[in-house]
C-alpha cells in the first residue's frame, strides 16, 4: 500500500465515521437517561430520505434541518411510548425499523425510480477541497460534538440530572426531577443527532438514497455506544474504527490477490466489540435503569 492509497483510505474512513459518531453520541445521551433505542436504523433511513427531499426543495441546509426534524419526531413518538405510556423499548425500536424500511422503499417508488433516488446537484452539501482530497465539513461537526457532549454530561447540572434519571430514577424523582420529561428530552436530542446523521449520508456524503441505505449503521452505532461504555470520546474512536474497517473492507475487495477475504475484515469490528463488552478488554458499565420505564410507587 503506498502513501496516496493510505490517504484515500483515511478519507473514506473519516466520511464513514460521521454518521456513526453522530448517531452514537446521540444514543449515548439517550442511554444515559435510561432509554435504549434500537430503532436508530429506522431513524437514519427515514431522515436520509427526508434530507434528500428537503435538499432538493430548499438546498442542503433545508435538507439537514428536515432530516433533524424527522429524527426528532420519530424519537418523540418512541419517547412518549416508553416514558409516559410505559412501553417496551425493544419492541418500539423494532417497529420503527420495520416501518422505516417499508416507508422509504414505498416513498422511493413514488418518486419515480424504485429502489434508489439520486439527489440533484443543487441539493449537495459541498465537500471542501484540501491538498489531501475533498472533505465534508460535517467531519468537523462529528469530531467536535463528542467533546461538547462529554463536557455536558460530566460538567453540567443538566448532565448530572440525565445521569440520575438513568442510574437512580427514584432518588432523582424525590429530588424534584421530572424523570419522564428529562428522558423524553434526551431521546429527542438523540433523535435529532441521528436525523442529522441520516441527512448527512444523503445530502453531504453519498448524494443518493437507496432502500437499504442505512445498511446497518444504526446497529453499528449501537455497537459503538456499547464499545464506549457511554463515553462520547470513546464512541468517536469506535466510530472511526468501524468507519476504517468499512473502508478497509472495500479496499481489500479490490486487491488482485486475496490476502484475506473482505468478509472477515467486515466482521472484525463486531468481534472486537463483543470482546470489549464481555470484559476481555476493559470493562464497561451501563446505567442501572437502562431500558426500564419509570413508574412511581
Amino acid at each position, binding site marked *: 500500500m503506498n502513501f496516496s492509497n493510505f490517504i484515500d483510505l483515511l478519507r473514506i474512513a473519516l466520511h464513514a465515521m460521521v454518521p456513526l459518531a453522530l448517531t452514537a453520541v446521540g444514543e449515548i445521551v439517550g442511554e444515559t437517561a435510561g432509554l*435504549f433505542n*434500537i430503532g436508530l436504523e*429506522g431513524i437514519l433511513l427515514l431522515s436520509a430520505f427526508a434530507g434528500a427531499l428537503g435538499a432538493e426543495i430548499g438546498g442542503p441546509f433545508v435538507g439537514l434541518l428536515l432530516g433533524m426534524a424527522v429524527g426528532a419526531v420519530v424519537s418523540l*413518538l418512541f419517547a412518549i*411510548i*416508553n416514558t409516559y*405510556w*410505559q*412501553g*417496551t*423499548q*425493544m*419492541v*418500539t425500536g*423494532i*417497529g*420503527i*425499523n*420495520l*416501518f*422505516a*424500511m*417499508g*416507508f422509504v*422503499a*414505498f416513498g422511493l*417508488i*413514488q418518486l419515480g425510480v*424504485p429502489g434508489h433516488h439520486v439527489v440533484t446537484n443543487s441539493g449537495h452539501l459541498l465537500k471542501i477541497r484540501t491538498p489531501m482530497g475533498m472533505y465534508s465539513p460535517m467531519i468537523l461537526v462529528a469530531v467536535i460534538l463528542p467533546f461538547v457532549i462529554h463536557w455536558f454530561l460530566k460538567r453540567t447540572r443538566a448532565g448530572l440530572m440525565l445521569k440520575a434519571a438513568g442510574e437512580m430514577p427514584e432518588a432523582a424523582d424525590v429530588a424534584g426531577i421530572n424523570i419522564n420529561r428529562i428522558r423524553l428530552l434526551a431521546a429527542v436530542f438523540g433523535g435529532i443527532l441521528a436525523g442529522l446523521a441520516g441527512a448527512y449520508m444523503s445530502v453531504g456524503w453519498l448524494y443518493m438514497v437507496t*432502500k437499504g441505505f442505512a445498511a*446497518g449503521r444504526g*446497529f453499528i452505532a*449501537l*455497537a459503538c455506544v*456499547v464499545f464506549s461504555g457511554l463515553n462520547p470520546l470513546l464512541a468517536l474512536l469506535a466510530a472511526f474504527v468501524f468507519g476504517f474497517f468499512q473502508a478497509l473492507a472495500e479496499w481489500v475487495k479490490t486487491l488482485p490477490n486475496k490476502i484475506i*477475504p473482505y*468478509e*472477515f475484515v*467486515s*466482521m472484525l469490528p*463486531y*468481534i472486537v*466489540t*463483543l470482546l470489549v*463488552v*464481555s*470484559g476481555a478488554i476493559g470493562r464497561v458499565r*451501563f446505567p*442501572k*435503569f437502562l*431500558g*426500564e*420505564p419509570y413508574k412511581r410507587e
Partner: protein
Amino acid sequence: MTAQEAQQQSRLLRGIHRTVTGLHPALESLIAAVAGLLVGALLMVIWGFNPWEAYSALIQGAYGGSYEWANTLSWATPLILTALTFSICLRAGMFNIGAEGQMYMGALAAVCIAYFTLPPGLHHLVGLLFAAAAGAIWSLVPAALKLMRGVSEVISTIMFNWIAKWLGLYLALNILVDSMRAEKTVSIPITARLPVLVKGTSLSAGIFVSVAFALVIYFLLWHTATGYELRAAGLNPTAARYGGIRNKRTMFLSFILGGVAAGLAGATIVMGLPPTYAAFGGFPQLLNMGFNGMAVAMVGRNHPIGIIVAAIFFGGLSSGGGWMQILAGVPLEMINVVMGAIVLTMSIPELIRVFPAAKNGIQKALRSMLRKPRSAAGEGSA
C-alpha cells in the same frame, strides 16, 4: 447476585412480564392489527391510492382460495419458527433478537447435506438436524456471555447477526458455492427436498415441521416441569430461585431451543423453496425473516398457538401484497409499513388501558377548563 442486583433484575422482568401477559391478549393484538392497517390506509390515501381496493385485493390474494392459502402458509412456515425463537427466550425473561443470524447458519448447514447421498427420509432428517444444530451452536456464545459475563443478550445477538451475515456470505459464495453459478450455493439434492404440497405454489412439507415444533414448545412450556421452571424464571427470577429453580439452566435451555427453532427456519426455506433449493449470496429469501418473526411473536402474544395464528396473518400480508400491487397499484413495500405500525402499537403495554387513560386525561382537562371560570365567578359573588 447481590440483593440489589436481584431487585433490579426483577424490576426489569416485570417490564417483560407486562409484554407477555397483557390484559386481554387477543383483543390487544386485534387492536394493533387494526391500527397498523389504518396507518397503511392513511398513507395510501395521502398518496392517492384507494385503500379499500388495496385491502380487498390483499385479502383476495392472501386467503381467496386454496392456491392463495398455500402461498400464505409457505410464508408463515419460517415465521412461526423465528417467532418461537424470540418468544421462548422472552418467556424465560430475555430479549433474543439473534434469530436472523441463527437462521442464516441453519440454512447454510442444511445446504451442507448436498455433499453426501442418503436415502430420502433419512436425508431430510439429517438436513433438519444439521440446521437445528447450527442454529443452536450460533446461539451458544451469546448464551454463554450472558450467563458467565452478564453481557446483555440484546447486544451480543445484534453482533452475532452481523457476524453471521458476513460469515454466511463468505461461506455461501466461497465454500458452498455452485461451480456452475457463482451467485448461489450448491442445490439440495432431490432426496432431501421437502415435497411441495400444493402444485404451483411454494408450500412445502416444511409447514409440518414448524407447526409440529410450535406444538412441542407448547407442550414443553405448559405441560412439563422444565417448562414451568422456564416460565417461572421469566416471571420472577428471585422467587424462582428461592423456589429451587436453577435460573441459569433455564436461560441456557431457552437460548438453545430458540437457536434450534431459528436453524430449522433456515432449513425449511432452503430445503423447501423451489425452483433452486439453494441459498443465494446476500440471502434474499431469508432476509428479515428473523426480524419479522419478532413482530409475529409480539402479535401472537408469545404463545405458540397465538404465534401460528399471527404467522398466518403476517404470511397473508406478505403473499397478498403481490396481488395488492397488481390489482390496486399499491407497492408491495406498504406491507412493511403496516407491519411496523402494528409492532409500534404492540409496544404500548395494556393497550386498551391507553384509551380509558386518554379519555380520563381529556375529561380532566375539560373539567379543569370548565371549573376555572366557575370558581372565579364564585369568588366574585362572595
